[in-house]
């Protein structure tokens, strides 16, 4: 198959060529960027929180009435929750991974260093690691004498010890050896790192509220959170999560009616709620991408059909002087490959330019080369498949009829 005559023929239909090139180029650029965004979002959404997610639920509890004996009321509640058959452990906390709000703290290596908030902070007791099913990769859990009540608004001083996540350890001590070191949580009193857990995602799904620390840079401090509003996080035996979730409010009300319980939900629901808008974004982009491919395919079919109808006489002539059907089909395929190949190449450039702009103007993540290549390849294949139908119709023209019709 010679390319030169195909190219020469194309110079006679510049507008059509420009239209297909523009369409393919735009499609490659949009597809690559959309898929990159969707993939990146999905990566974020799939990030494990660190908890035993399938077997964990939480509820928000607000005590009403006198708040003088809160510490005792919390302990009674926890005992009642742990007594429910199927419960492995329960803990009362201010926040937990993916809750949407929580506390952040300053962590520095020197007492006088000032810093913006740079880690999420969870108050956890002895049962914390067990309830959250977090794996210690180094060091130890808190000791009973380290855990103190943390009354909101009452200074407790810096905690003597803390457990940090691997991500935070790597940031603070890039050369290792975090265990046993002292850090400072905004005060001059040191806090010793006694343990490192594999993972504990921050309360914020999309990174940190301040944008200054990573999604897994969390710190656990040995406090029992004591406040009228707190969350009970409960871990159950496999398969018992829903049943215990239904029973838990009843058991708590049996302990005392002086409370308001809200947001009783499985961890799966917490996760779904946190990522709701991300899912919607992904869905919209996926639908748009699907429509984009369909529209582009139809565009190629329509324009090629138009060309076929314009070139009936030439096709008939070629057939009459000995071209096989295959030659005609091949002609249109080569022609399409040239046009869409040019469009795809332009699309790759456009896609990168667009992405660079998105990165600088909207702080999006840089797109990997693979997405652009894949998008270009996808549109080339789609375009080739789309051209088949009009090409086959052209090949089906009987030579005589093709000449006579015009």
């Amino acid at each position, binding site marked *: 198959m010679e390319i030169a005559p195909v190219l020469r023929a194309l110079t006679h239909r510049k507008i059509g060529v420009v239209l297909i090139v523009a369409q393919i180029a735009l499609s490659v650029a949009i597809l690559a960027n959309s898929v990159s965004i969707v993939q990146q979002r999905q990566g974020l959404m799939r990030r494990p929180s660190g908890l035993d997610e399938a077997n964990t639920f939480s509820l928000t509890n607000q005590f009403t009435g006198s708040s003088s004996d809160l510490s005792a009321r919390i302990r009674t509640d926890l005992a009642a929750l742990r007594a429910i058959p199927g419960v492995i452990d329960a803990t009362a906390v201010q926040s937990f991974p993916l809750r949407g709000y929580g506390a952040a703290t300053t962590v520095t290596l020197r007492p006088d260093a000032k810093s913006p908030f740079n880690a999420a902070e969870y108050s956890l007791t002895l049962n914390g690691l067990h309830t959250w099913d977090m794996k210690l990769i180094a060091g130890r859990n808190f000791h009973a004498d380290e855990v103190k009540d943390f009354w909101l*608004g009452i200074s407790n001083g810096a905690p003597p010890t803390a457990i940090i996540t691997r991500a935070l350890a790597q940031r603070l001590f890039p050369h290792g050896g975090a265990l046993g070191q002292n850090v400072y949580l*905004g005060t001059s009193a040191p806090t010793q790192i006694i343990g490192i857990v594999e993972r504990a995602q921050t309360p914020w799904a999309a990174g940190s509220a*301040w944008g200054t620390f990573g999604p897994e840079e969390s710190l656990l401090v040995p406090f029992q959170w004591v406040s009228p509003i707190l969350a009970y996080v409960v871990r159950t035996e496999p398969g018992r999560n829903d049943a215990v979730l239904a029973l838990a409010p009843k058991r708590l009300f049996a302990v005392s009616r002086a409370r*308001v319980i809200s947001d009783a939900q499985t961890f799966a629901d917490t996760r779904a709620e946190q990522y709701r808008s991300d899912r919607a974004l992904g869905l919209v982009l996926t639908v748009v991408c699907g429509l984009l491919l369909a529209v582009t395919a139809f565009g190629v079919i329509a324009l090629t059909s138009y060309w076929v109808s314009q070139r009936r006489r030439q096709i008939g002539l070629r057939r009459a002087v000995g071209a096989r059907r295959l030659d005609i089909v091949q002609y249109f395929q080569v022609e399409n490959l040239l046009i869409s190949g040019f469009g795809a190449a332009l699309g790759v450039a456009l896609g990168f330019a667009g992405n660079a702009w998105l990165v600088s103007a909207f702080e999006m993540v840089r797109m990997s080369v693979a997405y652009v290549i894949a998008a270009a390849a996808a549109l080339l294949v789609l375009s080739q498949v789309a051209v088949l139908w009009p090409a086959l119709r052209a090949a089906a023209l009987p030579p005589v009829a093709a000449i006579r019709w015009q």
Partner: protein
Amino acid sequence: MMGYYLQLALRTLRRNVVLTSLIIAAVGVGIGAYMTILTVFIAMSGDPIPDKSAVLFVPQIDAWGPATRPPGTAGSVRLPDQFTYRDATGFMRAHAARRQTAMYAVQLDVTPPVGAPYAQPGRAAYRDFFAMFEAPFAAGGPWSVKDETDLADVVVLSAALANRLFPHTGAVGQIVSLNGRPYRVTGVLKPWNPMPHFYDVSGNPFTLGEQLFIPFTTAIGHELQSAGGQGCASVPPPGWSGKLAGECIWTQFWAELPDAAAVRNYRQFLLNYSAEQRRLGRFHWPPLVQLSNVNEWLALEHVVPNEVRVNSLLAFGFLAVCLVNAVGLMLARFSARAGEFAIRRALGASRPDIFLQCLTETAVVGVLGGVLGLGLTALGLAANRASLGALADYADRLTHLDPAVMALTVALAVGATLCSGLYPTWRATRVQPAWQLKAQ
């Protein structure tokens, strides 16, 4: 003549059905996708208080100093976006604006006369809040200045909560039990939920709003904790008094500044205040202040996530692809009818006549595409409804009740189709009657 062209256009729709419906589909799908995403964007980025967005201001001062400042994007400084209690009340005392309010989010237990208590989001604010933010009263009014100085237990209820508590009687003057204390209802609002929730963006700005409002001073008197975001530059001194004296930010502050002179004066006031704090030994750095009106504030706080902006750009790109597609399809459609135009030209139609005829046809196709786009927009928003959350109602309002948005959709479709039809139309007018008729 236009009537005749319209008739012709409608008749030709039935010829070449496949090609015509492809054009309509391309325009409709492009417009539908774009409008779906644009509607969400409009719902999120709309001016929540158009009458006053230019005169309501958030002041910011450098309460924490340069060392604790998170690295902002280049060229901008990120000052704390909330206030310490002492600064907020200091501003209130200074009374440097016509109207002003310090405020913070609270959560209160409501104990109804019968049934279990339930928690309700609320706001502790000064009485100017209602006038500043145009919160409309259905009955009663705000509490008095005296209520504020007396730390009176008074409350303004939302329409929904008033109806829930007192379905059969007027709520004003009634007593409501909040956190176990009796509060007197001074007013009930009409349904009011500005979106985004611009006056406090420390939580989710697209949630349902507060159900009750109490005086700021009363909330502080009862030691009500903040239910919103909170940050501390240093560990505060012990106890409630420590929280009030400490360097934790958990209150918001707004000032109403009616003109440029007032804004200038207020900026000077902020600088003076910061300098004063430096003299007192609290700030160890030169004054740095910022004043933002409502829309500047929403931009500064990134209330519309970048993802939504990127989405609307991608959707616009998709619309462009659809329109490029439509150009090609229309080119094919008009070319197929070169013979018809040649006959009309031979019978005396001028080029402008052909142009007008083709344009009318294009407009008809555009209207049909627009109608299809409108349907797809409604479908897209319905599909997205669950994920839009509190925005869903807002998006509904925009699409279902707003003729302006509907007209915009169809106008956009017709305009875009006409633009993409220009070249094919021009080509159609260039048909050489003699050559074309001979070729037949």
